[in-house]
């Protein structure tokens, strides 16, 4: 079995995807998103934890099961179902912890928060004390631990902090685009800084490598979001009739959907490819590049397909009742979580140009 054969997920991965699909669908993501828009608090972590989903993709020596490809197909189903349980935030936190070598099994017993922020970590006392003015934390309220990537002027750190620790203050800020995935802002600091539960110092240049696994997860979630919007759009154009025929008969409609399908499949291939590239020990620059590209393409695709779904719905598309805005909210908020697509393309191009120079 060569590596690339796993690009077609094997029986184990397909079985996992099937189970996840059924279970996530039963959580009624669309209804939960609407409830969150009306001020409800999203939950669902118990179902996710009891289903063992938090352990997927975690190395076995850290008590986990499954491979990156399993994690990616599972997150794709979560995206497709508009899952509101904080699975993505936890996956991003765990991936980053694993990459930084600070993951602990007990971190998986509760939902995690994840964010990237500017600040400094003072390493004088060995464990690290964290000073961050504004950290936007995905999964914030209810998270048992925050995993933050702290970018300093000439260094970076991966830290895990307890939200209950002294010096962690919510600065408010409602989540406006997709409240089903809260992104509240916190200040970590005061005079002394917040004591880190775990900390790892890195050169700034290692950030994209550290984030590679998280990017594969975001890509998978967005591929699912895009695929969910595409399925819904296709179902609609088959059923809605104008001028005496299904609107899916019009070539202008067909071609836009064909392009959307092409983009979704390209994004899916890149997400699976990114998962496989991370399996190398240790993943190199090409894995970092693959994950940047997968993240960027999935981000653009999710936004584009959710927009197309809205257009093809006609006026119904701009109502609260239709699912279009739910896909659109999900797509837009998640798309820029780990950087704007243009910045990711740029970083990937730089890596490729450097590799080219080395190999010549």
């Amino acid at each position, binding site marked *: 079995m*060569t590596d*690339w*054969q*796993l*690009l*077609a997920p*094997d029986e184990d991965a397909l079985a996992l995807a099937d189970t996840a699909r059924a279970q996530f669908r039963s959580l009624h993501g669309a209804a939960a998103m609407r409830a969150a828009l009306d001020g409800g608090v999203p939950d669902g972590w118990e179902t996710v934890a009891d289903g063992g989903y938090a352990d997927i993709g975690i190395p076995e020596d850290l008590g986990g099961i499954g491979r990156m490809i399993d994690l990616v197909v599972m997150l794709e189903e979560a995206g497709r179902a508009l899952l509101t349980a904080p699975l993505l935030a936890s996956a991003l936190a765990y991936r980053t912890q694993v990459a930084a070598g600070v993951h602990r099994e007990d971190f998986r017993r509760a939902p995690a928060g994840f964010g990237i922020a500017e600040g400094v970590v003072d390493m004088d006392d060995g464990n690290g004390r964290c000073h961050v003015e504004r950290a936007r934390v995905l999964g914030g309220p209810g998270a048992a631990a925050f995993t933050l990537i702290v970018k300093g002027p000439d260094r970076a750190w991966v830290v895990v902090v307890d939200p209950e620790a002294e010096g962690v203050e919510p600065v408010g800020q409602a989540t406006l685009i997709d409240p089903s995935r809260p992104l509240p802002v916190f200040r970590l600091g005061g005079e002394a800084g917040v004591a880190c539960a775990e900390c790892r110092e890195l050169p700034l240049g290692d950030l994209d490598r550290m984030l590679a696994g998280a990017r594969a997860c975001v890509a998978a979630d967005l591929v699912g979001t895009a695929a969910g919007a595409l399925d819904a759009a*296709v179902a609609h*154009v*088959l059923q809605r009739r104008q001028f005496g*025929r*299904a609107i*899916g*008969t*019009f*070539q202008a*409609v*067909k*071609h836009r*959907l*064909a*392009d959307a*399908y*092409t983009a979704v*499949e*390209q*994004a*899916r*291939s*890149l997400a*699976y*490819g990114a998962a496989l590239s991370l399996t190398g020990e240790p993943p190199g620059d090409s894995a970092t*590049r*693959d994950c*940047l*590209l997968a993240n*960027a*393409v999935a981000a653009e695709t999710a936004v584009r397909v959710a927009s197309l779904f809205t257009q093809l719905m006609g006026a119904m598309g701009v109502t609260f009742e239709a699912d279009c805005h739910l896909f659109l909210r999900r797509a837009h908020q998640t798309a820029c979580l780990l950087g704007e697509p*243009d910045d*990711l*393309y*740029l*970083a*990937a*191009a*730089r890596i*490729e*140009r450097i590799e*080219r120079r080395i190999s010549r």
Partner: protein
Amino acid sequence: MTDVTSEFEAFLDGFLPADYAENYQRYRRDVKLRTEYQATAYDAGWLIPEWGPGEGGRDLSVPDALAVKLAGARRRVPRLMNIQGVGVAAPAIRAFGTAAQRERLLRPAARGDEWWALGMSEPGAGSDLAALRTTATLADGVFTVNGQKVWTTQADEARWCTLYVRTDPEARPHRGISCLVLDLRSPGVEVRPIRTAGPAVESFSEVFLDDVKVPEEALLGPLHGGWGVAMSSLEHERDMIWINTWLETTRALEPTLTAPELSEHQLVRLGRSLADAEGVRLTGLRTAAQRWAGLPSPASSILKLLGSESVQRAALLSLETAGARAFDDPALFDERLESLGATIYGGTSEIQRNIIAERTLGLPKGTP
């Protein structure tokens, strides 16, 4: 790397000149090297690795054969002189040919000793291939052919042509077509090269057919069953064509990848093109893996569209990135022109979108 690919790499090391990678741009136009490569790879069983010994292959499994082809693409093996001979004609002869046809035609087609042209398009039948009007009437064991083909790649240099003709004018358009193996040296065949917009890698021609006699034994596949021959031989090509478009995309990006200085905007575009290239490669591999595992592979329907548009975006980027440097480097605009054909031949991008929408997404047939 698997054992077979390292064996193949060793074969390449033995065959290719030592400075091949370095002077690749020059070797691309080396007709002698390209011709010898095809024959040598055929004889050594590396040309079509999934076929049997003596057919240019070595009975490799699909995954191993794919690994070999990818290794070849990475090393940028010489471009075959008459791609459609190996890629389209040979598989059609192998699948549909009589014992006598296989015996006479298969080896020289695959080895590159005899070149092939594909006679499908006509002035009135482009995207709508089933509208073709060239006729063949069978009497006393001989077809008499009249009509015209156009855009026939390499017809001026080829020995043979898979000629699609109407043999049953009464039947519905798809049902009345047959495929004949035409000897282009036959009396009544006139080939007129068409001048292309730039120095195209391959020429194309008009082919006029005036009372051309073709023996009944030259029928390839069933009488009136030519549509099936066309579809299945193009499918064979479609399964593998992505390796070529991936290679062409990375090649077209080369000037941008190695340009001394790029603006941020250009780097962003380069990143997008890298995602195109990887999208083609990974989708090709993913669908191959699905087929190998016996799973449906609907995403293979995007490969022609994504692949051809990727080549085009890459060539455009490299030309625009070069700016005024392109005035001194004719290759850049020529590549751009060449890339424009990619979204036309083998089914235009619009036709690909129709196919994806109707066959893969299940939207209603027909285009009001």
